[in-house]
């Protein structure tokens, strides 16, 4: 256990409601998307006013020109009288906001907390969006033109050079996640892709190609957390961190923040990765799904590519990964993503996803903030 951290048993926290918008290119204002998601989650929980609102948004100042965003969203939602805060940890903001909501209920400060996350960015040109997202990178590395795809390219080259994965295995992540998203009406991409299409798509940051990367998406997602028992319990939440600068790290082929987040979440849950039936992993770049499978202990070291190619992580496999389509194909509306992953887990655990249903009682959601500087693992259990 880290110094300064208290152990001890955690009171039970449950998910009482879940909602999200279709992800993709959306014309509505972000506040409207967040209201759709939030009102859906509140209606399902049977609550008009939660005790508190936690808002997740990564760059509303830059994308929209809006600040004071907790009050901005709470007022739009009709919850101006409810205490509201905003939480931001770059691309894992949704997962971090969920943690803040969880901590409020676990501490007994509130009986019900609404967490709502969203992002809107498709109205800006791609280079501008890349530049804004890239502000989460170490300033020195950014001054050399490092973008998220550039850093992911460096990582992918190191993975390939060490023969930890092959280009075919990386391509299979995209193929599998597109196939899952084709069954998800909330997903950005509804069409499957072939390994050849992935491996012949436009080069972005060598050796990373366009179809290895998630799209730029708009969308919002929300959950209501409560102290009263429901069908889904929060079994554990863990955070892991690392240096802002990627160059300061000993390894490019494993994320310390992944390993620390998993360790903390499993420690809180009192069980290990062998209990996980399915997972939503942060596949902003396809190779990250393979790195994370191993970092989180879901497959043995060196096996992620093989199990993916063998279909073990497919919807009908032993350990379905990203049944929603993942960031790769459901889409990645930044601060919505960590919450959208949990919405998918809740819907899966309660049998509400139709054709893409996978069996299971214990789900894992994994979110990467920045280039793995602030990562989260959340464990949900059907009870």
């Amino acid at each position, binding site marked *: 256990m880290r110094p300064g951290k208290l152990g001890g048993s955690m009171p039970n926290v449950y998910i009482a409601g879940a909602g999200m918008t279709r992800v993709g290119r959306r014309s509505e204002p972000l506040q409207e998307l967040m209201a759709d998601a939030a009102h859906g989650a509140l209606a399902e929980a049977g609550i008009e006013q939660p005790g508190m609102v936690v808002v997740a948004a990564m760059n509303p100042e830059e994308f929209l020109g809006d600040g004071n965003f907790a009050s901005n969203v709470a007022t739009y939602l009709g919850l101006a009288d409810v205490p509201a805060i905003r939480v931001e940890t770059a691309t894992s903001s949704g997962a971090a906001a969920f943690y803040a909501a969880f901590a409020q209920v676990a501490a007994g400060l509130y009986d019900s907390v609404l967490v709502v996350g969203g992002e809107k960015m498709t109205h800006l040109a*791609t*280079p501008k969006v*890349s*530049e804004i997202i*890239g502000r989460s990178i170490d300033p*020195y*590395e950014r001054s*050399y*033109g*490092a*973008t998220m*795809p*550039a850093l992911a*390219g*460096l*990582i992918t*080259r*190191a993975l390939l*050079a*060490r*023969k930890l994965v092959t280009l075919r295995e990386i391509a299979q992540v995209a193929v599998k996640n597109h196939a899952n998203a084709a069954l998800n009406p909330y997903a950005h991409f509804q069409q499957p892709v072939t390994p050849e299409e992935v491996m012949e798509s*436009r*080069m*972005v*940051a*060598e*050796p*990373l190609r366009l179809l290895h990367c998630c799209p730029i998406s708009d969308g919002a997602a929300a959950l209501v957390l409560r102290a009263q028992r429901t069908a889904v319990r929060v079994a554990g939440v863990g955070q892991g961190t690392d*240096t*802002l*600068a*990627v*160059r*300061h*790290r000993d*390894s*490019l*082929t494993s994320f310390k923040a992944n390993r620390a987040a998993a360790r903390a979440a499993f420690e809180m849950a009192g069980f290990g990765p062998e209990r996980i039936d399915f997972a939503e992993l942060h596949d902003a770049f396809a190779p990250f799904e393979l790195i994370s499978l191993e970092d989180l202990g879901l497959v043995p070291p060196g096996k992620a590519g093989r199990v993916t190619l063998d279909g073990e992580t497919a919807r009908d496999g032993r350990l379905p990964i990203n049944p929603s389509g993942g960031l790769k194909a459901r889409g990645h509306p930044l601060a919505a993503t960590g919450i959208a992953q949990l919405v998918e887990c809740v819907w899966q655990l309660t049998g509400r996803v139709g054709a893409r249903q996978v069996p299971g009682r214990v789900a894992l959601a994994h979110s990467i903030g920045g280039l793995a500087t602030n990562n989260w693992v959340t464990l949900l259990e059907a009870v």
Partner: protein
Amino acid sequence: MTEIAASRCPRCQAVVAPPATYCPWHPVAMTPTTVPGVGEIVSFTTLHSAPEGFRSPLHIAIVELEGGARFVCHGDETRGLRIGSSVAIEAIDDVYYFSHLGALERARLFWRRAGHAGDRVNAIARSLAKRVLNRGTRAS
């Protein structure tokens, strides 16, 4: 040889470049130091849609400097470059570039660093052996 400004943590001895006020891993002030501008490629990429203010294709590498720090820099080209390749780093207008060392340059560097004749020969032999080995793969 280019000397690169860096910082050392008095607690854990970690070296980071460029200099930082505090150690990333300890809340203590770092001590100024320099590291030689030679090292090995940890990884590299070529960006085909470079961000605003840069021209495509843009070569970016992480280099493990001999002084211990890992450094990010540009390169003019990546032909023949692989992970583990030895590179020299030079500053042009305050921007750092790596260049892939040829056999002569490598020999010259080892010549300068080696203490006496026997070491020189050994160093050159090691350098050539390493060059052959580097055609295989290396840990990052």
